[in-house]
């Protein structure tokens, strides 16, 4: 497969599969972090549109795994995006989504090999992991009780 990005250092959240117990707290903290109020009760019960988690915990006994955008080097979602809403930030190496430009055509959903992009609760645009731009450490990583999630700088 062609590689489209020059070598660079970037951030990515990875999961230690043997340590993930499938508790789902990463989903909860992701949802709260991406809510307007950042208040657990309001985020879950009152806010409209409902905030959605950009992390998905999958369980198939005895395994579980916490999935989110992996910042693919070959950026399938960026290449496929119909509008230019999904871009590769040349500075940070991160795949960034612009909700203003997004029209919810679901093309990125079709080509994301991790199933890490999904329609948000309005059904008008997509939601995906943004590595919590307002935080030092992403909410899911900080709150994983079993330290199964690692936010690492990767030398590509």
């Amino acid at each position, binding site marked *: 497969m062609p590689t489209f990005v020059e070598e660079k250092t970037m951030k990515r959240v990875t999961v230690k599969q043997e340590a993930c117990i499938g508790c789902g707290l990463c989903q909860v903290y992701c949802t709260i972090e991406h809510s307007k109020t950042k208040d657990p009760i309001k985020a879950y019960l009152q806010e409209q549109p409902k905030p959605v988690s950009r992390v998905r915990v*999958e369980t*198939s006994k005895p395994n579980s795994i916490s*999935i989110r955008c992996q910042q693919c080097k070959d950026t399938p979602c960026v290449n496929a995006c119909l509008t230019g809403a999904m871009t590769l930030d040349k500075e940070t190496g991160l795949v960034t989504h612009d909700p203003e430009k997004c029209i919810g055509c*679901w093309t990125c959903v*079709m*080509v994301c090999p*991790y*199933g890490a992009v999904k329609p948000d609760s309005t059904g008008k645009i997509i939601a995906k992991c943004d590595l919590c731009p307002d935080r030092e450490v992403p909410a899911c990583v900080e709150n994983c009780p079993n330290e199964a999630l690692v936010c690492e700088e990767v030398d590509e």
Partner: protein
Amino acid sequence: MTKYVIIGGSAGGIGAVEAIREVDPAGELVVISDEKVPQYSRPMISEYVSREATLDTMKYRADQFWKDNNVQALTGHVATKIDFAKKMVELDGKQTISYDKLLIATGGKPFVPRMEGSDKSGVFTFTELSSAEGIEAKVEQSKSAVVIGGGLIGVSAAEALVKRGIKVTLVELKDKILNLILDETASDIAEKVLTDDGVTVITGQSVQKILGKQDKPDTVGGVVMTDGTQISCDLVVVAIGVIPRTDLVKDSAVKVNRGIVVDRHMQTSVADVYACGDVAEAHDFLINGNRLLPLWPLAHLGGRVAGYNMAGKQTEYEGGTVMSSLKYFDLPVITVGTVNPQNISDYEVLVEYKPEKTVYKKILLKDGKIEGFIFLGDLEKAGIFFRLLKNSVDVTEIKDMLLSEDFGIVALPEQLRQEMFVVN
């Protein structure tokens, strides 16, 4: 220094510009486009007509894109001829531009069947911003429209017009709308959603004639269907499909089948001449051969691969296949690969249908591999299936799990998970 010339500045042309500049920041780069602002998202012309987007918000790349990439953008100009021996492109029938490497990314032109009255004012196609602007300017004075063609483009046109509050009739020659990308069940669901939103859907028929208004015979007043019924309307949108714009290579050494035939480097049969996008017939990973696939992501990817190769970075095109995602009438659908095979008995078919939730999923397996799938209503994991299909992964072992709620990356056999999904 290499001189690059690209004809067409849309999905494919832009992909090539970006790739060339990654490899060669200095080479002279010329883009010729007969559209004045070619860098808009073509699929968004429907948003333009529905007034959900303006020319500004539908830009695929910013206005300074050409300047930032040091491109001489000859917009509003037509490439009229190519001399492959002299390596020259003729512009507007006048001056010539030489090239070392040429990319033909001229896209498709709308197909308009022979039909009496198709020259009347109020008849539009639906592939260019200029036609969208024409329609938009007429919508206000129109009460009703007939859209000819029940494929993706026709459905997108119908949605835009319904959103503007006019009465829409959608006409499809075959028995089912969206029949190239949906199976019967999914098409029926789509048809119901369109109907519920006020579109009149007529299938199994076509328009044989476009009529004028009584007082203004040169202006659209209605259509006559193949069975003779008349429908009055103020607008006709012909949205049957696009055909590759291959005129520039006619009677040349460039091999054309239905589109310009390219190899895995996106090169045509003539050295230093490349093609991509709607004009090209490029690799399809499912049929393992060349095929016309007029889709935005593939035009862009093909353009990127062409650009790398033109600039000297050997890159192979991974290919595409029939792959569409739809959002029209708030019905989310992703459909990939073979979904209506001729010999259905050669396939194993897995189906899940929950009408109450408008969720429908269908997976077609052949020799243990996924050859096609439709996900309607619940899309989240579609990308995982796309990857399994693209990589021709044998899913026999996990077949029974594919449609289960719990299916996901976790359900893939360990080795597969390592190979395909675990962080590279």
